């Protein structure tokens, strides 16, 4: 697929979405000091009256969002992915449990976050939020899809957690193609009958590149952007499992509990299929450049290719 390679980081797409839905008076944006980083600052600049600053206080932020939601508002609260986890119990008990609808965005997800070091690199956020009933978990792959999926949350039926990335990556979608995305439906980027590579976030582009390289070797891979990790698109998983020899999952997230787990959990019971998980192998990161770090933990085009080969060579 030929998509323009320029674009912003997915966090930029989140900020843009808030502006795009700002005409709806129910939208309230909540910040815990990091609006410049999560890009909710774009909304704040234009709509200060509907932006609530709560300082560095994430637990308070989540329950303020819940209170606003109980009065018919649609709150969008953001901070770093890792700091949302500080308020995990608040999300569970104060927001999702009563069935209130507010949307949490954690930016700077994954080891790709870079030089800030391991304290800022959440590699478990998708796993923890996936365990909460009444929660949808989303991780867009570029700025355009972050905008599209965030806009769709405006009239969504349950609370959500969206992870965005700090750094710019090549665009996966065009202004047109992104319009076909739907929360809960995996996006098929290319089709091949041998193997399926299911990726999320910053790894989607690497999955596409791996598939391109493999095609030259005569291995045809389907590439999926599984931007919604929960509810996972089980219909698509069924189709893929029936078609291909095996599946490779790729995520800048712990191999415990994230995309790979979600795919395996479903398929092992419903359509047993070999699943090879590429992710952060139960370890913390460190300071370094984004690409250096991805390489350090084995999140590379080459590792995707060898995982695919290991399936077709079986």
């Amino acid at each position: 697929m030929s998509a323009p390679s320029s674009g912003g980081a997915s966090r930029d797409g989140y900020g843009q979405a808030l502006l795009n839905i700002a005409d709806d008076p129910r939208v309230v944006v909540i910040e815990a000091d990091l609006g410049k980083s999560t890009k909710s600052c774009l909304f704040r600049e234009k709509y200060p009256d509907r932006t609530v600053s709560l300082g560095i206080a994430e637990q308070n932020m989540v329950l303020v969002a819940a209170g606003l939601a109980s009065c018919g508002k649609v709150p969008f609260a953001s901070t770093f992915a890792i700091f949302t986890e500080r308020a995990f119990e608040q999300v569970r008990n104060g927001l999702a449990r009563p069935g209130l609808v507010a949307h949490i965005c954690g930016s700077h997800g994954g080891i790709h976050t870079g030089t800030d070091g391991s304290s800022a690199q959440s590699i478990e956020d998708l796993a923890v939020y996936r365990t909460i009933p009444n929660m949808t978990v989303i991780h867009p792959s570029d700025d355009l899809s972050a905008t599209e999926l965030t806009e769709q949350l405006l009239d969504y039926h349950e609370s959500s957690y969206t992870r965005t990335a700090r750094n710019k990556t090549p665009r996966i979608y065009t202004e047109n193609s992104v319009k076909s995305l739907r929360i809960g439906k995996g996006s098929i980027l290319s089709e091949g009958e041998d193997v399926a590579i299911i990726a999320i976030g910053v790894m989607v582009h690497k999955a596409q590149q791996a598939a391109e390289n493999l095609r030259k070797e005569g291995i045809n891979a389907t590439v999926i952007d599984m931007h919604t990790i929960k509810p996972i698109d089980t219909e698509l998983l069924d189709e893929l499992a029936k078609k291909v020899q095996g599946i490779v999952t790729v995520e800048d997230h712990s191999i415990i509990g994230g995309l790979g787990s979600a795919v395996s959990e479903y398929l092992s019971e419903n359509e047993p299929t070999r699943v090879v998980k590429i992710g952060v192998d139960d370890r913390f990161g460190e300071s370094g450049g984004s690409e250096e770090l991805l390489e350090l933990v084995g999140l590379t085009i080459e590792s995707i290719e060898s995982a695919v080969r290991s399936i077709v060579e079986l």
Partner: protein
Amino acid sequence: MEASNPSIESLEQTAIECRKSIIQMIHKAGAGHPGGSLSAIDILVALYGTQLNFDVSDGKSPTRDRFIMSKGHASPAVYSILHQHGFLQQSDLDGFRTLGSVCQGHVDMKWTNGVDFSAGSLGMGLSFGIGTALAARLDNHPYQTWVMLGDGETQEGQIWEAMMAANYHELNNLHVIVDRNRIQNDDFVNVQMEVGDLASKIKSFGWEVKEIDGHNMEEIVEALQWSMNSTSPSAIVAHTVKGKGVSFMEDNPSFHGKAPNDSELEQALEELS
């Protein structure tokens, strides 16, 4: 209903009926929190009787006043006053803590008509109240938000995140009542983690604060009205007695979360009549 003006005597009589309900509910369930329900109930009776605007036929009316019971284990106190005002039937109270009952162990807005917050995890209610108070302001609604906190609950850091935020956002439509009953789950508050002079602490966060005897109905009614007239977020620190009204429960940490047995029930009801 519009807030009315009942006599002090009738409020005191309602409080006695509520205390009986609380004890009976917990005895029947064989579990629950009598101590903190009995310390809070006089305040709840005054609040529902003199200040809160609500509509029994529409528990989710957008313009209702909100009452957020942050110390959600005192659910029997909430259920007893909701019963007095027609939100709940006796059969609902009889189901307290049983499978499928609208009277869950801890107050829960998802289950109970008239309940505005899902509690159970301490420290969260004041933040939720900031959300409802902000929503009122955004929508230009005059409704008020009342939050009851336990004194042990103020050991949670989130309470102070919220105290700071309420003042920063100038929420004079937000009212807190602290049930200062001096006992928490394991023991006396000053044994577990002394919270000290709560009035001064809250005042230092920019709130208006008043201290009262939380079992003197006249003082409670006056303090609630004082809070309504405040120009900043306001807190009433109500000095109370855990287990108030039942001699063997009063000031007794072991009745924080324990049900009375048959003979204790009998004695309690006798003392309350």
